[in-house]
């Protein structure tokens, strides 16, 4: 084959260019520690990374929702605890009041029941971050309160049966509240608030509570215990799902790292190798290109 001077020049130039192009790519990868800097670096790899990162972002959002829900649930549990304590106190009082030795102290018992009633009312109106815990989904105003003449307790909002649903994973939408309806039933005079008012007023009038009255309080106490248990279950579920999602995030982050991260040691070695090739090309071109027969004539 006839070798012209232009061929030699073109070959050297082409080899220098390709070495430099490889070095440029390696340098970008090492500097950014990311081998996926554009979709064309690996179209399928980039799609995978976007999908994984989207899932991580979604999972972090679920974690945020779970943490908010846990705070809401813990506040609800604390509110229910107050209510349960007062219900227990009332039951103790109702048992003691039956004893004939307390016949002279009915007013004192009435006061104690009035105090418990107000604590339960306070807990029923408990608020967390602008949301009433036991008002369903109506956060417009305090849900429970006295009537204008202070003779009874009434609902101040239209409906307290709304469920607060929160998305805690792709497939789970969790109800995180105990609705007012579930906890207190209908506020229609037969409810716990108005029953306690009736018992209080009767005591003040020297009338002891009937067994039926005691049963209403017992049933309420049992219901509160059940709701506490429900909240405990929701809390456990939230913790469990949070744990699962955190594990998912770890797995996804590993997958993203596998797709994106550069094997720095290998890249640096390759970079050095290319640098060596580049220097060799320069050396060869400086040795061979300037020579011709003219140098020897």
């Amino acid at each position, binding site marked *: 084959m006839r070798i012209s001077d*232009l061929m030699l020049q073109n070959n050297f130039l082409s080899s220098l260019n390709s070495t430099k192009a490889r070095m440029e790519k390696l340098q970008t990868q090492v500097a950014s520690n990311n081998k996926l800097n554009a979709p064309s670096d690996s179209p399928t790899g980039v799609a995978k990374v976007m999908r994984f990162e*989207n899932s991580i972002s979604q999972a972090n959002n679920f974690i945020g929702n779970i943490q908010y829900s846990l705070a809401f649930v813990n506040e609800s549990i604390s509110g229910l605890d107050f209510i349960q304590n007062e219900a227990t106190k009332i039951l103790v009082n109702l048992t003691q009041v039956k004893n004939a030795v307390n016949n002279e102290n009915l007013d004192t018992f009435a006061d104690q029941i009035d105090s418990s009633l107000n604590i339960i009312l306070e807990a029923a109106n408990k608020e967390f971050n602008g949301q009433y815990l036991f008002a369903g989904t109506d956060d417009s105003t305090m849900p429970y309160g006295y009537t204008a003449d202070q003779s009874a307790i009434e609902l101040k909002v239209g409906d307290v049966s709304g469920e607060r649903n929160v998305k805690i994973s792709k497939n789970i939408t969790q109800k995180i509240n105990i609705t007012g309806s579930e906890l207190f039933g209908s506020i229609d005079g037969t409810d716990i608030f108005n029953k306690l008012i009736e018992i209080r007023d009767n005591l003040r009038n020297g009338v002891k509570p009937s067994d039926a009255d005691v049963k209403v309080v017992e049933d309420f106490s049992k219901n509160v215990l059940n709701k506490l248990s429900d909240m405990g279950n929701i809390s456990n579920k939230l913790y469990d799902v949070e744990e699962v999602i955190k594990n998912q995030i770890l797995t996804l982050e590993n997958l993203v790292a596998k797709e994106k991260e550069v094997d720095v040691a290998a890249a640096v070695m390759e970079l050095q190798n290319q640098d060596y090739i580049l220097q060799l090309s320069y050396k060869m071109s400086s040795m061979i290109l300037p020579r011709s027969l003219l140098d020897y004539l």
Partner: protein
Amino acid sequence: MAISRLFDISRRSMITYQRAMDVTSHNIANAGNEDYSRQRANLSTELTEKFAGITWGAGIKMDDIERIRNSLTESQIISNNQSYSFNERQAVLLGGVESTLSEPSELGISNLLGKFFNSWSELSTNPTSSALRGNVIYAAQNLAEKVKSINDDFTTIKSNIYNEFGDKIRDVNNHLQEIQSINRQIAEVGAIGNNANDLLDVRDKLINELSNLVNITVHYDSDNTASISIGGVFAVNSASSTEFEMNHTDGNLSMVSKTGGNVVALNSGELGALTNIFSNKIPEYQNKLDAVIGQLVTSVNGIHTNGFTLDDPPQTAYDFFSGYINGELKIADEILADRNKIAVSGDGTNGNGDLAIQIFELNDAKILNGSTLRDEYFSFVSQIGSDKQNADRSVEASGIVLSQLENQRASFSAVSVDEEMLDVIRFQKAYSASAKLIQMANEMLDTLINIV
């Protein structure tokens, strides 16, 4: 046989080798000229003479000066030039398109779309929260800005292509005029029996440059002139050249002849790449992006319109997006003015966020061509990435072929200084020997004269 014949043969020899040296020195002078094709002095023995019954040799003569060119390699280079420049221009343009997406990064639509949906999920935890309502609006605004920026970038790229397309057509017209002029000169020089080698080099250089711009077919006529057609439309010969202009109809760019309006079938060269990206690729990408964003608007509004606002009394039938018009994703003015107009309550109570959950669930809903919006967007990004990657690989592959062909051409046609120097030595020695012969013939004549 007269001694004077020695003078004749030597004189002819000296002239011939001097001319051969001229050719060699022309080659050496052009050793650094990439477009030059080396020339060779073709020497042969002069016609013999018959005298006194004997045939006598008459020395050497130069037949012609040959331009060393391999026509097969040349036509392959023209053809590969077209595909190389097509792929290279496509790769550059697709690189521009690709960079508008900012993927994979936090600034890309993938992340912003995810954040938009996540903001609804967050809002569902506390629908009365003004801050969380604000988050939904900010996330939507960020998404809308990125969508607008991509669409604006697409428009800018198309506008740049449009301008470049016009410039390149002017470039084609200039080349065609020059080729026609040189064609004519080649014919004229050839007609009076002169050598047009250097004009042929200039003409071939122009043809090579033209093949970078458009897909051409070249025919060489017997008088060494070239007839060229571009994409099936006559472009130039020695008699005339066609003037082309740009045509932009129905979103398509094309190249047509000024007279007659013949449309050039552009399928390679830089102009082929420009029209392909302008008329096919970018509209295809825009359609895909439009489908994703259009469906987002329809689906979010479809749910949002059933929700109740935070007003007292709660209102319904509000759209979240006012539309996706001319590449702009617009959030409803009422919502921008009053975040309480975000309607996520399913039953009218202000703490209900059921519709926010439904909107969040659109993230995983297969609502576009049997896929999620996210997956459709990923496939859109992958397509651009694959197109760019294919163009890069094609550039590399056609670059290798072109470089091999150019090496073949360089091997055949380019100057080797070593080879030329050997010719110089060869011709110089022959020239010196002929001169010596004249000296000897002169001495022989002197001897004869002195005898008398």
